[in-house]
Structure formats: structure tokens, C-alpha cells
């Protein structure tokens, strides 16, 4: 590869380059930052993400109108990618805000934490640009390996080690399946690039059966990342065992990255397989919504409750993929999933921020009963958590409602009335356990112990208010999500 191509390619993916370079440099710089001043590392990491965000936003219009292809078509920076860039960087920033005080409080403060976070984000961003299955694999590893480490960050604690090991083992296993899927796709079509697969299918040279098996395996590999049933088994344990700040990041970032790959691969590479795959997607999203929501009812630990809730939420987003084979709806599949991911990001971070503020040493403060009286003693936190719960249920005026409206309309437009009905009825089930949190916060008396670090507090309130305000003034977000997918096809 000539140097010229390298430069133009690197320029195309500049936000990713910034994050990776910044993280590498920060790894060195961190050595010189004294142990009691790791806040500086957090700040620097945050600045790096902010810088990448500014670059992304400056190039937003260009990416929407003229998608840039780089590295010989291995990656493409289009509206879809830049939309997700912003989402990942935002979730990284929120994760840093949530982490700093939490780590200090729980004695986990190490500079590598932020560096690992940044590496993981770069993997997610790469995932959003991937136009080749090999790049998807690379990105998957780049985002996962730091997360394996982060999940075990509370290292003397056995649950954290268990979480890390479980995540690592099952994660590697699923990656293995994913790679095997790529191999089969390659065997079927002679290429791993998405456009190549389509070309092979169109020319009739592809082996349909082999391609179908390969496609199914890639779906399983990514299904594990986004935690859809039956590939969700790891989620509750890992979410519970990992440090809460890592869980918050994982619940949003890793899920969104998994969906980024799923959406692009399915809609661009596998439309020809929709006859066979749509029923599978239908069934998976239905059981994910049903199982996630029903099992969540039985939870008494807030982290496990949110873990099952995140499984259920993945089911809703997955639902948007069901009509992917219908060319009239496929663009809306992507944009509604993107929109819901934004709603999910704000909602999820709000909830996790409250969890983090209530968590005490040795895992105390994580039971639902510990939330008794929160609404009265800390009205703003109670408000924030209520907004998050209502948004998860899909009650207006919250982003969760508008997002679900968009998702369900996509599903209905694809003609899957039954699935939409299942989705709506399971939302009703979910109302039961989400409301239980609200009931405990407002209708029981108690003395909740809260560590109200300033920045976490602000972040909580801001995300909660954004969840409400963006739902009323949602047009710009809708437009962006629609624009983002225009040049994708």
C-alpha cells in the first residue's frame, strides 16, 4: 500500500485514529501521573474523546453526503458510521464521568482503566465503519478484549473475577463461532467484503446453503455481544460482577457496537437470505423480549434487574431487524434502530448513574430495598430514576416512548403485526418491574445512602432531562437518523 493511500485512509477514519493514538500516548503519560491524582488521567481521556467528537461533528455533513471509503474498501465512513461515532464517544464520556468517583470510592483507581476504555471505544467505532467481515472481526476483538479486562477490574472480588472469566470464555467462544461463520461465507462467495458478497449472490456464483450457514453463525457471534436470547446467559452474571461503571459502559457501548455490525451486515450483505433468516430473527426477538422481561420480574438486585432489562431492550432493537429484507422498509430498520439506540443510551446511563451513586463498598446498596425513600430524600435522583424507568417502559413523554413508536412502526410497516403485538404486550409486563423500582423509591420509607459526587450527579440529571426534552423536540434527532442511512445502500 502506497503511503498516499495510507494517509488518505487514515484521514478518513481520523476520529478512530485520534482515539487510538491518544490512548496509546495516555498509557505512557499515565506512568508519570502520581497515584493520588488519577483524576488527571480521567480528564485527559475525556479530552481525547471530546476531540474525536469535535472532529466527527465537523465532518458530519461530509460523511452523510459523500461517504468516504478507506483501506481499499475495507472500511467506510458514512452517515451511519458517524452517527454511531457520536453515540460511542458520548457514551465513553459519560462512562468516564461515572467512573472517576466510583473507582476512587471502591479503591479501583488505576490509570489503565481509562486507556482500556478508550481502546474499547476505538473498537466500537471501527465496528461501525466495517465494510468487510474481517474488519468486523478485528473490531470485535479490539472492543472486547479491553472489556474482558475491565470486567475483572475489581480484581480481589471473586464476583468480578468470575465476571471477567465468564465474559472472556463465552466471548471467545462466540468470536470463534463468528470467525467460523466468516470462513463459511468466504467459502460460499470467495470474498469477505460486503459488496463482494452481494456481487457473488447477484451473479449466482454463491453457494446459497453454505452462505446461509455462515450468515447464521455470524449472527450468533454478534447476538452474543448484544445479548439476545438464547445467547444471553452471561449477561446477568457479568453485569452484576463487573464494576458498575464498566457495566454501564458495556450495557450501552458493546450493545450498540454489536447492533452496528448486525445492521450493516444483514441489510447490505444478506438481503438475499431474508426468506430464511427473517423467521429466525422474528423468533429470536420474540423470545428475547418475552424471556428478558419475565425473568426481570423475579430480580431483587438492581444490577441483575437492569441486566435482564438490557436483554429485553436488545430484543426490542432486534425487532427492527426483522423486516430487513424488505427493500421498502430496510432503511427505516436502520434509522429506527439508531434512534432507539440513542434513547437507550440516555435512559440506560441515567439508570446506571443512579445505581452507581447508591452502590456502597462490598456490593452493598444494590438491593431494590436500598432504594426505599430515595424519591423523598433526593428528589432529583428520584426524578431521574423515574424518568429512566418510564423511558424503559415506553411511557411518554420520554425518548423511550418515541423510540419504541419508531421501532413498532417499522415492524408494522414490514407487516409483522404479531411481533409488534408481542413487543407491546411485553412492554406491559416490563412496566411491572420497572414500576416496582419507582414504588420502592417513592412509596416506602427508608434512609438511602448516596454518594453524591458532583459530576455524576450532574450527568444523571442532564441525561434524565435530555430523555424528556429530546422526546418532545425529537425532529432533529429523527432527521439525523434518517439522513444517516441515506447513502448506506
Amino acid at each position: 500500500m502506497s503511503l498516499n493511500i495510507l494517509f488518505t485512509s487514515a484521514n478518513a477514519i481520523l476520529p478512530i485514529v485520534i482515539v487510538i493514538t491518544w490512548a496509546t500516548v495516555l498509557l505512557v503519560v499515565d506512568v508519570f501521573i502520581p497515584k493520588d491524582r488519577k483524576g488527571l488521567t480521567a480528564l485527559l481521556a475525556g479530552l481525547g474523546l471530546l476531540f474525536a467528537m469535535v472532529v466527527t461533528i465537523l465532518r458530519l455533513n461530509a460523511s452523510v453526503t459523500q461517504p468516504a471509503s478507506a483501506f481499499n474498501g475495507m472500511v467506510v465512513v458514512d452517515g451511519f458510521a458517524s452517527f454511531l461515532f457520536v453515540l460511542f464517544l458520548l457514551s465513553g464520556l459519560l462512562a468516564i464521568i461515572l467512573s472517576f468517583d466510583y473507582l476512587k470510592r471502591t479503591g479501583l483507581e488505576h490509570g489503565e482503566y481509562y486507556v482500556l476504555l478508550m481502546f474499547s471505544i476505538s473498537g466500537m467505532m471501527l465496528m461501525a465503519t466495517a465494510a468487510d467481515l474481517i474488519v468486523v472481526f478485528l473490531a470485535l476483538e479490539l472492543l472486547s478484549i479491553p472489556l474482558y479486562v475491565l470486567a475483572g477490574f475489581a480484581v480481589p472480588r471473586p464476583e468480578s473475577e468470575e465476571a471477567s472469566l465468564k465474559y472472556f470464555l463465552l466471548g471467545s467462544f462466540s468470536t470463534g463461532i463468528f470467525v467460523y461463520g466468516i470462513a463459511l461465507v468466504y467459502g460460499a462467495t470467495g470474498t469477505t467484503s460486503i459488496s463482494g458478497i452481494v456481487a457473488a449472490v447477484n451473479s449466482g456464483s454463491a453457494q446459497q446453503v453454505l452462505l446461509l450457514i455462515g450468515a447464521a453463525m455470524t449472527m450468533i457471534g454478534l447476538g452474543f455481544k448484544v445479548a439476545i436470547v438464547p445467547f444471553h446467559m452471561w449477561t446477568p452474571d457479568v453485569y452484576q460482577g463487573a464494576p458498575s461503571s464498566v457495566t454501564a459502559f458495556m450495557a450501552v457501548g458493546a450493545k450498540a457496537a454489536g447492533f452496528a455490525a448486525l445492521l450493516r451486515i444483514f441489510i447490505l450483505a444478506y438481503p438475499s437470505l431474508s426468506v430464511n433468516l427473517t423467521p429466525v430473527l422474528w423468533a429470536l426477538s420474540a423470545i428475547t423480549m418475552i424471556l428478558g422481561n419475565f425473568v426481570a420480574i423475579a430480580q431483587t438486585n438492581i444490577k441483575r434487574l437492569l441486566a435482564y432489562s438490557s436483554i429485553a431492550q436488545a430484543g426490542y432493537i432486534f425487532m427492527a431487524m426483522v423486516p430487513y429484507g424488505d427493500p421498502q422498509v430496510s432503511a427505516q430498520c436502520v434509522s429506527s434502530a439508531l434512534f432507539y439506540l440513542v434513547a437507550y443510551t440516555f435512559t440506560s446511563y441515567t439508570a446506571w448513574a443512579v445505581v452507581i451513586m447508591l452502590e456502597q463498598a462490598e456490593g452493598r446498596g444494590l438491593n431494590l430495598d436500598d432504594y426505599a425513600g430515595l424519591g423523598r430524600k433526593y428528589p432529583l435522583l428520584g426524578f431521574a430514576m423515574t424518568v429512566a424507568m418510564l423511558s424503559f417502559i415506553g411511557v411518554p413523554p420520554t425518548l423511550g416512548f418515541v423510540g419504541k413508536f419508531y421501532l413498532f412502526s417499522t415492524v408494522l410497516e414490514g407487516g409483522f403485526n404479531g411481533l409488534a403485538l408481542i413487543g407491546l404486550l411485553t412492554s406491559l409486563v416490563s412496566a411491572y418491574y420497572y414500576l416496582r423500582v419507582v414504588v420502592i423509591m417513592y412509596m416506602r420509607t427508608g434512609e438511602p445512602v448516596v454518594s453524591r459526587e458532583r459530576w455524576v450527579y450532574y450527568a444523571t440529571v442532564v441525561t434524565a432531562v435530555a430523555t424528556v426534552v429530546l422526546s418532545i423536540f425529537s425532529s432533529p434527532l429523527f432527521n439525523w437518523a434518517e439522513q444517516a442511512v441515506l447513502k448506506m445502500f
Partner: protein
Amino acid sequence: MNYLLHPLTLVTFFPLVGVLILLFLKEEQRTAARWVALVTSLITFGIALAVLVQFDPQNPDLQMLINIPWIQVAGWNITYAMGVDGLSILLLLLTALLTPISILSTWTAVQDRVKDFMIFFLLLEVGMVGVFLAQDLFLFYIFWEFTLVPMYFLIGIWGGGRRMYAAVKFFLYTMAGSVLMLLAILWLGINQGTFYVPDLMVTAPNIVANIQIWLFIAFAAAFAIKVPMWPLHSWLPDAHVEAPTAGSVILAGVLLKMGSYGFLRFNLGFFPAASLKLAPWLAILAVIGIIYGAMVSYAQKDLKKLVAFSSVSHMGFVIFGLFALNLQGIQGSILQMVNHGISTGALFLIVGIIYERRHTRELDQFGGLWKIMPIYGVLTLIVTLSSMGLPGLNGFVGEFTILLGGWGAGQPGGSYGSVWYTAIAAIGVILAAVYLLYMFQKVFLGPVTHEENKSLKDLNWREIVMLVPLLILIFWIGLYPQPFFNLMGPTVEKLVAHLQAAAVAGLP
């Protein structure tokens, strides 16, 4: 930006001003919180009256329309559309009137977290007014679903002993209906290309028969739970009994009307052919509700439960009138919505007054109160008589018109062809007299049986002030209902013509 100062936007969102002020108050400033809420709701009532002044009763169409693009993506055409017509003007006024009265009723009854209470109450008003004015299904659904949240908190925080159970049951039960309606709304939005109600009035009636019936059922599920129609009423006694007095007043006075209003505007408006086809079934359910509610009411030992079940019976009349699908039936039904809001609202206030003094609602705990609290007795008697439909008071006018409509429902343009429905419904009027007089007798007549009751104080000025407006309306509607019929007349005539056109055309 003139739509921000549009009267309908103002009347809907003005309570938010009060919420904003309340947010800056301290928790200890209870009196200030009460006054802020009261004044805000009174100003809202004033704006509602201004809307009434501008309202042209001769015009059958939506008036003071606002229609501003809101979300125009994904092929949707969602607008911020508000409007008022003969179907909603009375309900708007009822809501705006009952809110300050309810706030007045909390003056001494609510001592705990007054500020939060008032915030939720004003938010509730925003939702309720919005439901009656929204002319875009998306907007309507947002208001509709939003009313759940403040009511849920009002029951759950300030309610009685089983408040958490009641609050969650209320929320889940109502939401169960709402999600089905949401599915129907989405279907309409996608397949008709608009959420704008006046447009859908034109296009939706042409939807093919079997889909139209499904859509009708999906909407009806949400509304029937809200009304509530038998057999979907089981959330109501729990919610009513546990809710604080003001919550019960609003619940009975306004929230239940949202259900019957929904039937009126959406089920009859969008699916006239399906309405004609399904009207006999709904009439049967309504009649069962009338009789069942009355009988269960008679069996209650708790005053509040008695009034709560009487709502099932009275709302049965409302639905019965609506699905007569003729002029008298629908007019009577709308008037009866208002009547029920006034009478039952007043009854809940009356129950609240005695509960505040005695902290019990058991019928056995009372007796002979007439001698101790004469003013209270007289006012209660009037309200009771109004609720049971004594001629000269409001309940009679509504129920009589509904029964007339039901009787005429067999005529061309009507739907269910037998007068038996009406005959059975009329028994409900007698049963109402039975349980209401039984209640009155147990509480007010006979000797004073309990020592504690002897020292009860009669009504104070505040309590009289909050009941008087309702009493005036009870007499006004009872003696001279014409102005009220005039307000809704042209719109209802247009709706009936709409239904008749569908009857002539048959199922598409």
C-alpha cells in the same frame, strides 16, 4: 410563534407555570404551595371560560384549530394539532372546574409533601386537558398515557393502606388497554398516512370491514378499561378507595370521561360502520354494567366503595347512550358525562369531608348525622338526589335523554332494534335510588348511634365554597339544560349524519 399564545395551548399548558413556581418553593411552605396551585388552576379555568366565549356553538366543526408540523419523518405526518368542538368543550370546562375544587379539598386533608402533591396535580391537569383537545393521534396518545404518571403517584404516595397495590394495578390495567390502542394508532398512521384526526374522520371509515372491526376493538379496549365497562372495571374500586379524596374526584370526574370521550370521538368518528355492527354488544355490556354496578354498590359497607361502584353503573348509562348512535342518545351521553363528573365528584368530596373528621368510611359508624351537621346533610341530600336522577336536578335530564335515545335506537339510523335494552337500563335508575337512599339513610337518618359522632363540626366556609359551584350546576342543568345542549348540538348532529352515511353505505 403565535401558537404558543393560542388559547388552546394556553389552557393546556398553563398549569406548567404553576409547576415551575412550585419547584422553587421549599417543602415547608405548604400554604404557599396550596395557593400557587389553586391560583394556577383558577387562571386555567379562566382561560377555559375565555375559550368558551370564543366558541361558536353554531359551528359543528373543530374550532380554534392549531395545526403545526411536529415530526415529519419516516413517512409520518405528526402535527401539533389542537382543536375544540361540541364534543369536547363541556369536558374541557368540567376538567378546568373540577381541578381547583379538588385542590381546595386538599387544603387540610393533605399535610404530607404538599408541594409534590400540587406538582403532580397540575401535571395531571395538563394531561387531562390535552386529551380533550388533541387532534392528532400521536399527541393524543402522549397526553393519554401521560395522565397515568401523576395519577399513579397521587394514589401511590398519598393513598390509603393498600396504595401501592392500587397504584400499580391502576397503571398496569390502563396501560394494557393503551398498548392495544397504540398498535391501532400506528396501523392508522402507517396505512392512512396521517395521524390528524379530521383527516382520519374522512379516510378511516373506508377501511375494509374486518380490519375496521379489529381497529375498533383495539381502540375500544383502551377506552372500555378507562370508562370502565363491565367486566373490565376491577381496577376502579381499588384505585378509588385508596386514592386521596382529590384524586378520587378527578378520577371519577375526569379520567373516566376520557374513556367515554375516546369512544365518542375516535370509535364513532373513525369506524362508523364497525360501530353500527358492534353497538348491540357494547350496549349489552353497558346494560350489564348499569345493573351490576348498582347491585354491587348496594352491597358495600364502605362509603367510598359504594360511590365507586355507582360510577360503574352511571358510566354504563353514558356508554349505553353513545351506542344508541342517534341524536338523543349521544347528546344525553355527553351531558351525562358532565353530570356524572359533577355529582360523583361532589359525592367523593362529601365522603372526603366526613373521612377527614372521623377517619373512617364504614357505613355502620354513622347514623343521625343530619342533626349534628345540618348543612352537610342538606348538601349531601341534594347531591344524592341528583346522582339518582330526581327530576329537576341534572342527573334526570341526562338519564332521561339517554333512555329516549335508547328507545329510539331501533328507528332508522339507530342500531340495536329492541326496546328491551332500554327497559333493563331503566331498572338501573330504580336501583340507583335504592342504594343511594340506603346510603343516605344509614349516614344521616335515625338516632346518633356513635358517641364520637356527636362532636362532629359542620361544614366550614372552605368546604361550602368548594361544593357550591357544583350545586349551582346541579340545579342549572336540571332546570334549564338547553344552553348545554346548544353547545354540543351541531357537532353531534354532524356526527350522527356521519354515522347515518355509514349505515346507508354499509360495511366497506
